[in-house]
């Protein structure tokens, strides 16, 4: 038997909306887009039922949703929105402004590929498209992690004074009902506390200008502040993960290491595929194969040092990307991981796989095949133009 009030069956979207109810933000501005629609829809229900005190702004586009969130956050509010895919792309003009203004907006983002061709299913092309926008990015494996990460995200964002997107895999997690353990409302309230911005636009005691024209003489210095903040946010994330584990018993970090202690071969990936890969690891471990998995959670700030340390003792590493970088040689996770490994005395041989574009399913057996290929992997790269293996695509 389980505690019916706290152990609940929720989809990823419901879990993230529930986190938003408990956060009770000052302002939520949102525009619907599949598969993230339900998050704002369910939250709008909470507003209508008087369960939160949020000002819900029904905007006419995602560009406006992000603009409204920026305005409200600049005015000193705790602000949220949610989106997917094309919605995120329409927001993209405003995203770097939110980070440059150091506004701690937290946004659930449901990963969906980007058109064209038009498709509503999962890959990471949307968030990868805005990976350098100055937003922290957390990729979740399941609904439980999505719930926890949204709550933790508020704390991290407000301490780092940077916005954060917390993403789940569209449909695979956003629409899959699973067991989620909730934290009691009062504990969330206590954990997050009141948002006290350092300063805010409508503070008559400390008048400031935000968003002024900033040309050659100062732009670089001001940009540097946001760049530094992103580097420094690593320590804040570490500290917040430890605090969360201490308070609520669930452990998170920049990445999760699964069966990595004696692993010789590993997969590095992000999102729901990692859950499936854990089953592949278990199966291969039963046959005595020394395989492991590193599941990246925090892609921005990129934990280069920690990741390189964890990966450097491997013999071989498969980096599995759910998006492509269109002839960049390899895909985003591979490019950044290899940059982190470059120059180290010890580093694994790597190979990059791109999988699951547009929601293409990937099975345990296919992941086992990747491990098997990497266990025997010896050949150096031959084609330096096109190093990626595209998994599961028909020719």
């Amino acid at each position, binding site marked *: *038997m*389980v505690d*019916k009030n706290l*152990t609940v*069956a929720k989809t990823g979207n419901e879990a993230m909306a529930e986190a938003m109810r408990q956060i009770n933000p000052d302002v939520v501005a949102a525009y619907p887009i599949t598969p993230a629609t339900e998050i704002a829809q369910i939250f709008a229900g909470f507003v209508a039922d008087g369960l939160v005190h949020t000002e819900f702004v029904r905007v006419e586009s995602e560009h406006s949703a992000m603009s409204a969130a920026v305005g409200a956050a600049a005015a000193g509010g705790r602000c949220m929105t949610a989106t997917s895919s094309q919605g995120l792309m329409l927001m993209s003009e405003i995203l770097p402004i939110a980070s440059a203004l150091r506004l701690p907006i937290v946004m659930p983002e449901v990963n969906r590929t980007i058109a064209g061709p038009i498709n*509503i*299913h999962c890959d990471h092309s949307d968030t990868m498209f805005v990976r350098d926008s100055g937003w922290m990015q957390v990729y979740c*494996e*399941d609904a439980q992690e999505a719930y926890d990460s949204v709550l933790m995200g508020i704390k991290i964002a407000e301490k780092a004074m940077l916005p954060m997107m917390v993403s789940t*895999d569209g*449909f*695979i*997690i956003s*629409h*899959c*009902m*699973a*067991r989620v353990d909730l934290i009691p409302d009062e504990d969330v309230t206590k954990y997050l506390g009141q948002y006290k911005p350092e300063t805010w636009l409508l503070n008559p005691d400390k008048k400031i200008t935000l968003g002024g024209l900033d040309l050659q003489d100062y732009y670089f210095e001001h940009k540097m502040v946001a760049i530094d903040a992103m580097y420094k946010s690593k320590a804040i994330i570490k500290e917040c993960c430890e605090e969360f584990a201490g308070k609520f018993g669930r452990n998170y970090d920049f990445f999760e290491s699964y069966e990595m202690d004696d692993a010789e071969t590993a997969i590095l990936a992000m999102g*729901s*595929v990692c*859950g*499936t890969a*854990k*089953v592949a690891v*278990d199966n291969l471990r039963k046959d005595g194969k020394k395989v492991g998995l590193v599941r990246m959670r925090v892609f921005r700030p990129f934990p280069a040092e920690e990741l390189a340390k964890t990966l450097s003792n491997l013999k071989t590493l498969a980096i599995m990307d759910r998006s492509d970088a269109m002839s960049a040689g390899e895909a985003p996770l591979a490019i950044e991981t290899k940059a982190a490994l470059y120059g180290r005395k010890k580093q694994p041989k790597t190979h990059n796989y791109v999988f699951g574009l547009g929601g293409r*399913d*990937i*099975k*345990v057996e296919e992941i086992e095949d990747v491990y098997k290929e990497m266990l025997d992997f010896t050949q150096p790269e031959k084609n330096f133009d096109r190093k990626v293996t595209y998994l599961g695509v028909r020719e």
Partner: protein
Amino acid sequence: MDNLAEIRWHGRGGQGAKTAALLFGEAAMSLGQYIQAFPEYGPERMGAPVQSFNRISPEPITLHCGVTSPDIVVVLDPTLIATVDVFQGLNEGDSIIINTEKTSAAISEELNIKDKGINVYTVNASGISKEEIGRDIPNTPMLGALVKIYGKLDVEHVLVDMKSKLEKKFRHKPEVIEGNLKAIKRAYGEVKS
């Protein structure tokens, strides 16, 4: 993952295949199981063939791929058998439960699957639904049949859990709650091999 059960529901848009998967998942969870319940998302039209899925396990479930070799298949609409391969991925020892007036022997004969070692069960869920709920909504009685065939959930607990779920869902139509509960109970008792 040895104790993991995977279930696939076949229905037509509007018959409640998704709702049934969600209700079954929630009922299993309230009995301490880990669960997943998810529909197949594609074009959604009333009457078109649809599928939904469950995973049930006493241990946490990390699989996030599609269900391709289910242990149990539930067919809400017998006319689907002619157009959809409802047996896809079923192996020896697996089970299929079909909403039909026919006996399982007749179905096995008709479909020529007697030597495949698949356990075929039938129950007249539409008939039960018409009698108990007053309409042909086969999803809740089929859920009762599934509880019986799955065999690891106490039906009385399931009924208690279902009652509280239905009370929330049908706040304004209390008359359908009793009918649904009776339908679940009857199908649990009437499903046959």
